[in-house]
């Protein structure tokens, strides 16, 4: 519980400070938001590690090969980065750049999922043999 309170606190304080700084120089305001985001994400790292470890354990117990799920984890990571990145671009007023980031994210997600789709194909081929 305290984690979420701390996180919310930092973000709100960061937003307020950014408002103040924006009046003088909006670039620094953007950097300030970025700094707040980075700090909070680093802080969440511990929690996320626990989550992913749990997911891996589940995967092991069920006996499915880990390779199947790695593309999924990568997609989650890509989604996270893309979401924060595109929002930052839009905050700076560059929605075009934001869209570009999102598109790049989709393409990378597809790339990452290529081995997965290959596995799907091979399984279907085996079943229909």
């Amino acid at each position: 519980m305290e984690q979420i309170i701390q996180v919310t606190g930092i973000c709100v304080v960061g937003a307020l400070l950014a408002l103040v700084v924006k009046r003088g120089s909006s670039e620094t305001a953007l950097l300030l938001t970025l700094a707040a985001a980075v700090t909070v994400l680093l802080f969440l790292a511990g929690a996320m590690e626990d989550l992913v470890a749990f997911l891996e354990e589940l995967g092991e117990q069920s006996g499915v090969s880990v390779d199947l799920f790695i593309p999924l984890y990568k997609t989650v990571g890509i989604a996270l980065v893309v979401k924060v990145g595109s929002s930052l671009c839009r905050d700076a007023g560059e929605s075009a750049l934001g869209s570009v980031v999102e598109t790049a994210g989709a393409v990378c997600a597809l790339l990452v999922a290529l081995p997965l789709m290959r596995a799907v194909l091979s399984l279907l081929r085996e079943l229909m043999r």
Partner: protein
Amino acid sequence: MDVDLIFKIAAIGILVAVLNQLLVRSGREEQAMMTTLAGLVVVLMIMVQEISDLFDLIKNLFHF
């Protein structure tokens, strides 16, 4: 949590803003621009380490 980072950057930001206003008011726009740029560079240098840490973390966490 590294809250000091945020406050440091905020402080630099306000400093740069104030300097900016002063210089613009006294008519030295180029120097105002240069101060802003300098402030940005300083902030970026402070943050680079943190950002790199974050990306390393994401890489390890999500099995890249």
